[in-house]
């Protein structure tokens, strides 16, 4: 079955520290991968996406993610976080047989402390 797993429900980190939010997927077909961010009381905003090409993808707000096909992962990273990065982060996958639909992970709450 196709699925998306975000292993960490919460990630606390101090300001200016690096952070990695993990995302793994299960699929027997080609995938397209996305990271979304949700700030409090707002909808989801696209951070970055991988459709094809270079496996290292850069997004907005200094975030980047690397597609690793052999490990079926798409982890999100930022070298130095700010207080304003405190939000919920969702990994999502679209499968090649039905690219109209996204399957979302359960989300990771990133909390940045001063």
């Amino acid at each position, binding site marked *: 079955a196709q699925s998306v797993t975000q292993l960490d429900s919460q990630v606390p980190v101090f300001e200016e520290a690096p952070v990695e939010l993990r995302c793994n997927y299960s699929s027997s077909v080609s995938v397209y991968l996305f990271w*979304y961010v949700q700030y409090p009381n*707002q*909808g*989801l905003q696209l951070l970055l996406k991988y*459709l094809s090409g270079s496996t290292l993808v850069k997004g907005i707000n200094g975030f980047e993610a690397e597609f690793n096909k052999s490990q079926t992962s798409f982890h999100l990273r930022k070298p130095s976080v700010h207080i304003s990065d405190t939000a919920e982060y969702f990994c999502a996958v679209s499968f090649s047989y039905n*690219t*109209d*639909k996204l399957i*979302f992970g*359960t989300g990771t709450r990133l909390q940045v402390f001063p």
Partner: protein
Amino acid sequence: DVKVTQSSRYLVKRTGEKVFLECVQDMDHENMFWYRQDPGLGLRLIYFSYDVKMKEKGDIPEGYSVSREKKERFSLILESASTNQTSMYLCASSFGEGARLSLAQHFGDGTRLSIL
């Protein structure tokens, strides 16, 4: 910039009422989606539509219906609201499958619905 607008940010209704949640997008997207978001469960797809008057059930369609009479508008209907439908509801839109340069869904700000 894509704009997806949900008619209400907060809504309070009573058990048994018929509830309408409205969503409008301004980018001529073919696809529109309704999700509900609950803590620890992420986003779950209720219904989606890939064209006017077309709809498909998502993962949790029970207790809901939808309407898409115009391309830009997608309505979610709770036929008889129940307390377990208290949740955050998110609308999204995207280009159809042919637009492979995109595929990303664009979201509204959500409607926080409370059923009392």
